[in-house]
């Protein structure tokens, strides 16, 4: 039996023309049909921008609420449940809390230090948010739902993400506060250190899929083995390693626990955000959450098969629902990790990136190259292929892990009895 993986053209499936799948397209065509021909592309673009901003804006608001409630439950308390819907008494477990938070941050006084560089102080959150939103353009949210189809989509995504680092520097510099500047430098060091594992983590995916275009990468993960196991890259040894490295680097890139040294309250107050208040602070956090959502979306595209269903019997659920489900699962994973792990110190952070993640990511590239070269091994050799690939993942992990925690003995706690 030949178990070789053969990618199937993605959009040809019995469900690709179903009503639910085409529903967004019908809506878009109906809206643009009100206008004459030359304007349609403009309204098309504006419509996709509006949909992305509203959907992910709402998602951002409810992710903050979900985070507070889930963190609360893990910490044996209920989380916010008091905010009622305005002018009524209905609380609904605090579902109106994000809007209360929004009103609070909008109405807070915007304090800018007198010696601060006002233009840069204003531009920093704007630039950060602009580039974070730009990254949403290439993620395929559904079978027919890609805002912009680019030949080098993945590269565009990470280029826009790299430009956000500039905003962190601008925030720290413009505050005219030496502690903010120090913290901004540390934040930049963290961002640059983790950019390398982040970029190296998707190189194997591009290698195996043969394209930098996000839609083609999703198409390369189509199809199922025995109608149960999907061809997602995360279910291969190098894919699992790549996914883990990508998620860890994504945590660090969006300044998220346990890598949230730049914004920790006990370190240098709020780091590079010390001199920001009110709406600008809210914009920084919006940019952080958008970064989280965008990186999760890219992880889904690269490793988790994009909008594909895990089994052909579940294909009646539309593709965008699957995408949102996977996105929610990843975001809940982010929240779970935040609740569990203590913060990493600066030197631990950088050591982890350079001495552990980068070598692992480089080895992963080699592993993926071996995988794609051994595509046509047949029969029992397939088992060897899996075993060799898994060994190349697990071996260096164990060895590097031992080296990473060498010289650090397990803590022995002695209590005064």
């Amino acid at each position: 039996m030949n178990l070789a993986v053969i990618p199937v053209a993605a959009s040809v499936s019995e469900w690709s023309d179903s009503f639910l799948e085409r529903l967004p397209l019908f809506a878009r065509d109906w809206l643009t049909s009100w206008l004459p021909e030359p304007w349609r592309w403009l309204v098309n673009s504006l419509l996709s921008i509006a949909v992305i901003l509203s959907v992910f804006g709402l998602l951002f608001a409810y992710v903050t609420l979900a985070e507070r409630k889930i963190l609360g439950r893990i910490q044996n308390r209920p989380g916010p449940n008091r905010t009622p819907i305005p002018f009524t008494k209905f609380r609904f477990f605090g579902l109106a809390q994000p809007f209360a938070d929004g009103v609070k941050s909008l109405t807070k006084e915007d304090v800018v230090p007198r010696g601060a560089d006002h233009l840069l102080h204003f531009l920093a959150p704007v630039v950060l948010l602009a580039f974070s939103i730009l990254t949403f353009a290439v993620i395929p949210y559904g079978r027919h739902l890609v805002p912009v189809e680019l030949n080098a989509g993945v590269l565009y995504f990470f280029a826009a993400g790299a430009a956000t680092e500039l905003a962190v520097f601008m925030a720290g510099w413009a505050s005219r506060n030496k502690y903010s500047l120090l913290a901004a430098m540390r934040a930049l060091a963290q961002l640059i250190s983790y950019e390398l594992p982040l970029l190296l983590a998707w190189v194997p995916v591009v290698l195996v899929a043969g394209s930098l275009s996000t839609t083609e990468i999703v198409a390369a993960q189509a199809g199922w083995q025995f109608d149960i196991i999907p061809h997602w890259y995360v279910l291969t040894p190098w894919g699992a390693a790549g996914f883990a490295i990508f998620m860890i680097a994504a945590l660090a890139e969006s300044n998220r626990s346990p890598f949230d040294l730049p914004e920790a309250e006990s370190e240098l107050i709020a780091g590079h955000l010390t001199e920001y208040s009110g709406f600008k602070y809210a914009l920084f956090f919006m940019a952080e959450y958008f970064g989280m959502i965008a990186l999760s979306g890219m992880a889904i595209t690269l490793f988790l098969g994009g909008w594909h269903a895990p089994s052909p019997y579940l294909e009646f659920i539309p593709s965008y629902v699957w995408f949102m489900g996977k996105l929610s699962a990843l975001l809940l994973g982010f929240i779970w990790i935040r609740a569990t792990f203590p913060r990493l110190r600066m030197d631990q952070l950088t050591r982890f990136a350079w001495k552990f993640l980068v070598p692992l990511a480089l080895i992963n590239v080699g592993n993926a190259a071996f995988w794609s070269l051994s595509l046509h091994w047949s029969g029992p050799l397939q088992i060897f292929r899996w075993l060799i690939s898994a060994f190349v993942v697990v071996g260096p992990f164990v060895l590097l892990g031992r080296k990473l925690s060498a010289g650090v003995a397990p803590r022995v706690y002695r209590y005064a009895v």
Partner: protein
Amino acid sequence: MLGTGLLQGLGVTAKNFVGSFHDPARLTTIEYPEVKTKLPEAYRNFPFLVTENATDPMGTLRCVACQICEKECPPQCIYIEKSKDKKPDAAGKPQLFPAIFAIDTSVCMSCQICVEVCPFDAIKMDQVYEIATTDRFSALLLNREQLAKSNVYYHEIHPTEAAEVDARLAAERKAAEAKAVAAAAAKAAAAAKLAAPVAPKPPAV
């Protein structure tokens, strides 16, 4: 191996999360003000005056204005003025009563010394803590009417203490009654003895 501790930690938080929905030990928050904590019996806040029944609070105060608590109070926050006349108390004996009994709760430090020294079990510690007001001075000075609460209330907040006090007071009352009965009997006997004609002296021989 690297990562085993991480996975164990993730398991602990997951257990906490799932447990918070069905296990009360994993969701320990008491959502005040809809739910209030059960206070321990010995909890105390500010004093109150015990009355025997609630229908005539001022007439059945146990306090006899002996002013011992006023003298013993460390921050001197009690102010008492004796009445000019006497009223019969629960045992029927005419006693003085406080015309003015005021406690300044902004000064009171809840030390319970007034309760410990009162010979009549007239002042006890209350447990109410939701007494915040917007007036810093006159609203924090509690007068006799505000301080008087019934014995039934005392039983509700300090059940064992109140039962013990009631038993003691009842025993005292019984002892006093018995003594009064004995004294009356003795008096009656003495009176009878006095009223009885003197036995005629036998003629002198």
